[in-house]
């Protein structure tokens, strides 16, 4: 047959080096990311969302600043408003970010599958890892665009004073990482579930789980972590009658009392994105906590306090006497919250969740595929 001859003559096409499921190349990654971003940028919906975001965050910043000016009186004070405005804006940006990020990635794989464009990429020489990480990069970049749109307001709050530039840096960095994690979780679910609405719901549930359910669990575990112990207390002298006009003497006593060992359960708070963002800033001076009204600093103090847990002797004496006269010196050190960081644990846990999402997605995109999820179509 003539066909035979032709084939023999035809030089065999050079077989490119085999690349496995997890092979990554800058070229492949960029191809997928550019493809995804192009599609996103061209949808007007996305632009609208970004504009609405900018306006809403701007409005919140304005309202907060205005409210603060009214609360703090005639407005002519030298008081810094930065702390409160800053913490409200950051909290709000994070809250909105947690709402928006799942929508950016939770349809990335099953949406393509339903539109019939996923297999088109799978048959090419892109590896599953390149497809997944490219999509993750695109979703993350989109999420970061929202973050960038909020930076002017964060800087505005910073100008108000009371917050360090370093805090802005750590906050933005943590916000970025947390949003990336949420995108990765969404991507994982979008590879597993066939409907985009289903993967969105699962992503919201997961984010809700680490944001709300774990802290609630922490609260519910308070009785279980509270024990009755003998504690050394600096207490009012025995036999002191409260009719006396002199301050009571204080003395060391040993009393049975309830001690909350929050140092056993603090880690339940750690994965919470708000905790991660708050705890990553430099630890402030507890003395000024109340003045700044920086809620992030308060939150940070709270989780550090929880991690410190049982701090030994307690002072039940100092300050209980309301009458006149000198207050006795207290030998009990005021509680020093730990300088051990909480956020690396929380962020570590969150990053593991995100990594799990990526691994699941890559495994689901392996070709040839052995099994199809219920109701999915490869093409």
């Amino acid at each position, binding site marked *: 047959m003539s*066909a035979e001859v032709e084939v023999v003559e035809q030089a065999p096409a050079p077989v490119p080096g*085999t690349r496995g499921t997890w092979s990554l190349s800058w070229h492949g990654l960029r191809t997928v990311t550019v493809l995804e971003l192009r599609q996103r940028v061209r949808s007007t919906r996305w632009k609208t969302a970004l504009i609405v975001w900018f306006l809403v965050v701007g409005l919140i910043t304005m309202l907060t600043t205005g409210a603060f000016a009214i609360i703090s009186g005639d407005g002519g004070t030298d008081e810094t408003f930065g702390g409160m405005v800053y913490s409200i804006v950051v909290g709000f940006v994070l809250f909105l970010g947690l709402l928006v990020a799942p929508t950016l990635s939770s349809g990335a794989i099953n949406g393509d599958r339903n539109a019939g464009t996923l297999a088109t990429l799978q048959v090419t020489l892109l590896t599953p890892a390149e497809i997944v990480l490219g999509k993750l990069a695109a979703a993350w970049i989109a999420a970061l665009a929202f973050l960038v749109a909020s930076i002017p307001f964060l800087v505005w709050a910073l100008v108000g004073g009371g917050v360090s530039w370093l805090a802005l840096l750590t906050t933005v960095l943590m916000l970025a990482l947390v949003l990336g994690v949420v995108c990765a979780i969404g991507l994982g679910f979008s590879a597993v579930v066939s409907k985009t609405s289903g993967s969105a719901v699962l992503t919201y549930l997961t984010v809700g789980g680490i944001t709300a359910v774990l802290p609630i669990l922490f609260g519910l575990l308070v009785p279980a972590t509270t024990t009755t112990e003998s504690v050394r207390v600096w207490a009012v002298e025995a036999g002191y009658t409260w009719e006396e006009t002199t301050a009571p003497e204080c003395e060391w006593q040993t009393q049975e009392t309830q001690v909350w060992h929050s140092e056993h359960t603090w880690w339940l708070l750690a994965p919470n994105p708000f905790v991660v963002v708050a705890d990553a800033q430099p630890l402030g001076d507890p003395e000024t906590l109340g003045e700044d009204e920086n809620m992030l600093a308060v939150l940070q103090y709270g989780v550090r306090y929880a991690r410190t847990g049982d701090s030994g002797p307690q002072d039940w004496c100092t300050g209980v006497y309301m009458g006149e006269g000198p207050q006795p010196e207290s030998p009990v050190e005021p509680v020093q919250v730990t300088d051990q960081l909480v956020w690396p644990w929380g962020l570590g846990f969150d990053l593991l969740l995100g990594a799990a999402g990526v691994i699941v997605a890559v495994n689901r995109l392996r070709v040839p595929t052995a099994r199809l999820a219920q109701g999915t179509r490869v*093409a």
Partner: protein
Amino acid sequence: MTPDGGIRAQGVRRSFGPVHAVADVDLVAAPGRVTALIGPNGSGKTTLLLMLAGLLTPDAGTISIAGADPVTQNYAARSRTGWMPDVFGTWDSLTAREVLTTVAAAYRIDAATGRARAGELLELVHLSEFADQPAHVLSRGQKQRLGLARALVHDPDVLLLDEPASGLDPRSRVDLRVLMRRLAAEGKTVLVSSHVLTELDEMADDAVFISRGRTVATQSVADGDRPREWRLTALDAEALTAWLDENGPAYRRESDSPAVLVELTGDAAAAALLRSAVEAGIDVSSLAPAGGVLEQAYLALEEERR
């Protein structure tokens, strides 16, 4: 035939739960030839092509695509396969040109070559004037042509085309046919699944019939030794049938038409019949094959199944 080239599938099987989409398919498509994959709806054509394209693992059987096993050497097989799915989405917001350059990049072709290749292919499928329009403004047939161009971006050795002709206008169908023939002449292996059998007649060299997930027949289209039906018409139908009753081969009347159908083997037999009919004074107005080779083979198989 070299063991390397083309498509070879043996005993391929694939089920989805209780549904045996592909039960037992043997298929050989040789380089330099166009092979038609023919079967009724739901016979497992698309599933088979997905396995050949390296997207689905077969439950059993072996596949070789240009010498590579899509299960164990998926990457190598993918690099040589061009696949055009039956229903496909396009990235709607991308222009036709961007679709092709993106696919080129996905096949690790550098940007400059990719751009040149995209221009070339757009020319080939007559989409140059829509090159910079977003893909969602393209009609169904134009999208189909874009899909064909997409399958050709990396100049594959093996082409798997799932219903490439659906939605194409007559002009595009002719173009498609010419293109298929040209690709085969370049030594490529072309496997086409289709329902439009008359078209495959002119396009395909070989045909593989599958039904309910099994290969039921394999034949060469150019095979002249098989008996096939010819349609014979005369001015006087009565005289024709009278003559045929006496001298001619077995015939049957076609319903609602004066023509009769006779089964003949080869063109020589047709010429002989025509000559003797004319010599006997029958005013024959036409003698032509009734339907395509593939159509007849297909219908015959359908018949057997009943």
